[in-house]
């Protein structure tokens, strides 16, 4: 987006945010793996682990594809 003025594409920021959130959510899921938080339904499915991993993968793809090369 907006190549002529070399603004960092919004997709790069999206990727950055997804990666950071993915790491935090994955880490939180792993930390609670053996002691799932009380009151949360279906905690046996460990949703934070695979959801965090999905966010990391998508974040890496977005960051790699839209990395601001040659930005002034």
């Amino acid at each position, binding site marked *: *987006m907006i190549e002529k003025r070399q*603004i960092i594409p919004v997709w790069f920021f999206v990727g950055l945010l997804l990666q950071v959130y993915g790491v935090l959510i994955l880490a939180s899921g792993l930390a609670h793996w053996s002691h799932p938080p009380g009151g949360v339904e*279906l905690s046996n499915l460990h949703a934070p682990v695979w959801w965090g991993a999905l966010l990391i993968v998508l974040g890496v793809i977005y960051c790699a594809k839209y990395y601001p090369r040659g930005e002034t």
Partner: protein
Amino acid sequence: MMAMMAVGAPTTLVHLSGVDLLIIAIYFLLVLGIGFYLKKFAKTGEDFFLAGREMTAWVAGLAFVSANLGSLELLGWAGNAYQYGIMAAHWYWIGAIPAMVFLGLVMMPFYYISKTHSVPGYLKLRYGTEASALSAVTFAFMTILMSGVNMYAMAVVMEVVLGWSLHFSIIVSSLTVGVYVAAGGLFSAIFNEVLQFFLIWFGALLIPILGLVETGGWSGMVARIHHNFPGQDFTHMWGPMSSASHNPMGVHWIAIVFGLGASVSMGYWTTDFLVVQRVLSARDVRSAKLAPIIGSFFKMAVPLIVILPGLLGRAVLPFHLVPANVAQPGQFKFDDVLPLMLARYCGPGLLGLGITALIAGFMAGMAGNVSAFATVWTYDIYRPYMRKDAPDAHYVSMGRWSTIIGLFVSIGTAYLVQYNKSMMDYVQALFGFFIAPLFGTVVLGMLWKRVSRMGGFWGLLAGVLTSITVFLLMKFDPSWVKVFAFSPLAQPLAQAMWQALWASVTCVVVTVLVTLVTKPKPDEELKGLVYALTEVPREEHASWLHRPVIWGVAALAILVVLQIIFW
């Protein structure tokens, strides 16, 4: 700061852990950082107010749909889905998709070719100052009130859900929005809307996924709803609308098709400058045509994260939610269904993501209103009526100052709403008064070159006055409900559809009648503004993948299939 956050509600729907708070803090840091980064690119008026008209179709399309995906809508429509069932999805499908496709294929070329910066700006070119001034002043007034309502609604949700004090939420959200919009203008608003879009999807998508796992899929969910609420139909869209007495909304299909689909939806999606401004930022006509059509595909999918959680609430929650006006201490309201479902399936980390999505939605709502206000105030009120020939830099500076002042007015509105709760309903109703008739005025002006200057103005005014009159009569004397809505059972949502329909019809009739007895504008003044006198660019040489009309037809075809599936 933590102490200030904790002041307020003694009981909360959810409790955040350290990782949740970290996720929220990172979001605030990122949006502020993006705002400061974009400041250096927002130098001219076109940069600040229209993001340089450089956005791709995808960015403009996501911002277009995201500007409407605020948290007020998310919470409210999830609550409506709990209350009325899948019929609430009409507001996402027939109440959005045809209008978005119509905007892209029919109206966007005129907005774009005329090089207008706003909808009141188009009215000025097409009709003159009367209709434009009426539209600009009312729009500026309403957007600033809506920004305050968003601010207050966010503060209340944060108080109820998290236990944060009202003052803390109002101060933090307004400061953040003020800094990033004043710095980067529409650039910042659009960047944050795209971020918000991803946050909302990734923050809410787990609810339907895990909800359907718990209920054993769609059929399992339907069976549970029938078991919990025997004799009531919450899972069909059109079947129960053969009569107003057959559905909980008290609505007949005529009100949905003509009131929602042809009046409210067309008015909102094609003339509300808050959403149209996002598309005007597109880099060329083809992108401007494609943007709302790209948005329509995502809009069609939104019921997955809004309507389905409401339905799942009916199926899995061990207690019944009640209307806000009868909720007793310890009872939950319809609008609490989304946070309740979030807390049901999301533990630490995921909960922070979901709450961040809600905060982002509220702040994007405020930013959208404030950036649209700054544009209309600067270009449609300040420049034509106060200072005509100032340098461009002066108007950019005025845009920044009006953003800050607009936010202060919004804060005042938020506190006014706190002490007068019914004001919130009136502000939202106020917005509806102008939307439906404005569509009649704009579309007649685009498609019929004979429509005169006075025809446009008097049609718009008559439509607005009709809308206000019908609203007040039905609100203060329920016996009028059966007159205007053709059924005494019509609920407020159904009444609003009929109100819009009456306003649209009045606007069109008055516009035509006044036009026939007044002098039309000369053709030379209408070039680039009306269908008969404008060379609309076609995409005959583009591959079919790049033709807006192909994707518009595809969106409408999917819409029809969805109606059949959920009939």
